[in-house]
């Protein structure tokens, strides 16, 4: 096997121009796909964070007394997935509103009576510990709360999140399709590069076959070469992405300050690397299959 690896490296060096083009192209493909993965990963994290921050506001009918409050609270707490329930009296709500209005808070001074209802702030837990609750879970809890006597209205940012999630899903779908096309392009580029090398070494291959070299002996160095190219391409692509990420993270990018961007996990990086090597192997396989059939 050492002999094959040696031969593969030698071939890469002997065909350095074609090999470097292949590595650069694989690097670019991996850079594009990894950038997309980085975006998806961070966007998914952000959505999950937002979802976990979703509160259901339960407004109570006017005139509900303290005994009814505790009944409603008990009923809400009994609903599956309800995590925390906090009572917000209409006085507290008015104080919060006054604080939010800031300077315009004085407008509230002229009110003869407090128009805000008493309410409960309900936090929904998820079935899964690591991500926020999904929209169906929130909706199910909201419907159950709505049916409790004494509850006038239930509110949560359903439409906004639904729209954002729909856009995100569409983006993910388009991105995956594009990534698929890039992967296919990568396979064909590698296949063509290997084919160029095969054409350049046609005589050598013919001689090897004539003297009784096994298919394994002929093919293995090409496979190793393609796997090395795939690995180097992936490494180069991810290094560029990492430096880009470092630049974004360290420089003052005001527009992105609200999102905590994290780099791809080590497992994802390794998976990309392995996928790129498989990409190389596949390109080589297609090329050899077609070429050696002759």
């Amino acid at each position, binding site marked *: 096997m050492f002999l094959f690896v040696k031969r593969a490296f030698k071939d890469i060096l002997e065909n350095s121009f074609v090999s470097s083009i292949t590595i650069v192209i694989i690097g670019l493909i991996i850079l594009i796909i990894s950038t997309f993965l980085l975006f998806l990963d961070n966007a998914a994290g952000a959505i999950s964070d937002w979802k976990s921050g979703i509160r259901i506001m339960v407004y109570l009918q006017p005139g509900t007394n303290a005994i009814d409050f505790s009944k409603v609270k008990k009923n809400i707490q009994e609903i599956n997935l309800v995590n925390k329930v906090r009572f917000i009296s209409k006085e507290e709500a008015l104080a919060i509103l006054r604080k939010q209005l800031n300077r315009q808070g004085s407008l509230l001074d002229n009110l003869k009576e407090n128009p805000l209802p008493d309410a409960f702030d309900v936090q929904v837990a998820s079935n899964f510990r690591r991500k926020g609750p999904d929209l169906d879970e929130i909706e199910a809890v909201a419907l159950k709360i709505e049916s409790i006597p004494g509850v006038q209205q239930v509110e949560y940012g359903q439409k906004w999140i639904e729209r954002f999630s729909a856009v995100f899903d569409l983006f993910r779908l388009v991105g995956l399709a594009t990534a698929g096309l890039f992967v296919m392009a990568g396979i064909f580029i590698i296949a063509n590069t290997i084919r160029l090398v095969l054409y350049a070494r046609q005589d*050598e291959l013919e001689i090897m076959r004539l003297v*009784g070299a096994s298919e394994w002996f002929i093919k293995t160095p090409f496979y190793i070469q393609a796997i090395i190219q795939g690995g180097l391409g992936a490494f180069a692509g991810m290094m560029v992405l990492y430096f880009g990420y470092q630049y974004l993270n360290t420089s003052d990018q005001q527009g992105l300050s609200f999102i905590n961007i994290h780099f791809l996990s080590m497992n994802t990086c390794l998976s990309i690397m392995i996928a790129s090597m498989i990409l190389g192997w596949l390109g080589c396989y297609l090329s050899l299959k077609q070429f050696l059939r002759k």
Partner: protein
Amino acid sequence: MVNLQKKSSIIRLFHVYKTYSDKNALVDITVDVAQNEFLFISGPSGAGKTTLLKLLYLGQYASQGQILVDGVNIARISKKKIPLFRRKFGIIFQDYKLIPQKTVYHNIALVLEATGKKGRIIPQKIRSVLRTVGMEDRIDMYPPSLSGGEQQRVAVARALATDPKIILADEPTGNLDIQSAGIVLKLLIQFYIRGATVILATHNLELIRKTGGRVVHLKDGKVQAITWHEPIRDF
């Protein structure tokens, strides 16, 4: 040159045909080649000499008929076993088929590595075969810097390196001057003397006359005659 009656056949062709779309390259060839025979296949260009050699090492399959090599019907050899089967042969071509980017040493080493030889045996064998063909001092040179005759001697050395039972030489002196052709021919005869079977395809009747031996004359893919030539000099 050889007493055929006492030797068993290493290659047998029974009514072999080779057809390319609508052209008959070989028609009804029936020939036996004895073990340790020096056989010539003669004929003008397009007679089917190269095709016949290709059928023997499974470079191509016969369209019809049967070929036995070493007692094995080669049509039944599975694709996976073809490399092993080809190790019985040492093949020499008119255009040498050396790899120009590799030195003489590496051209021969490739063949040895391809046939599974490892370690110190490789340089030893290379030196030994290069000594046999008188090319030991050219071991680190690249083929383009050698003359045609020298390149063909390296090609012969490469064919001998794996100690094959059968040498197939397709017009090995076709591109060489008389002197170089003589050297290459002598090498093949030396190899024959050591026990190998040599099948040499050529259109050069002078070469056959000098060497002597059995000659299969081909024309338009058919065996026209099988003759016996006494050598001018017995090797």
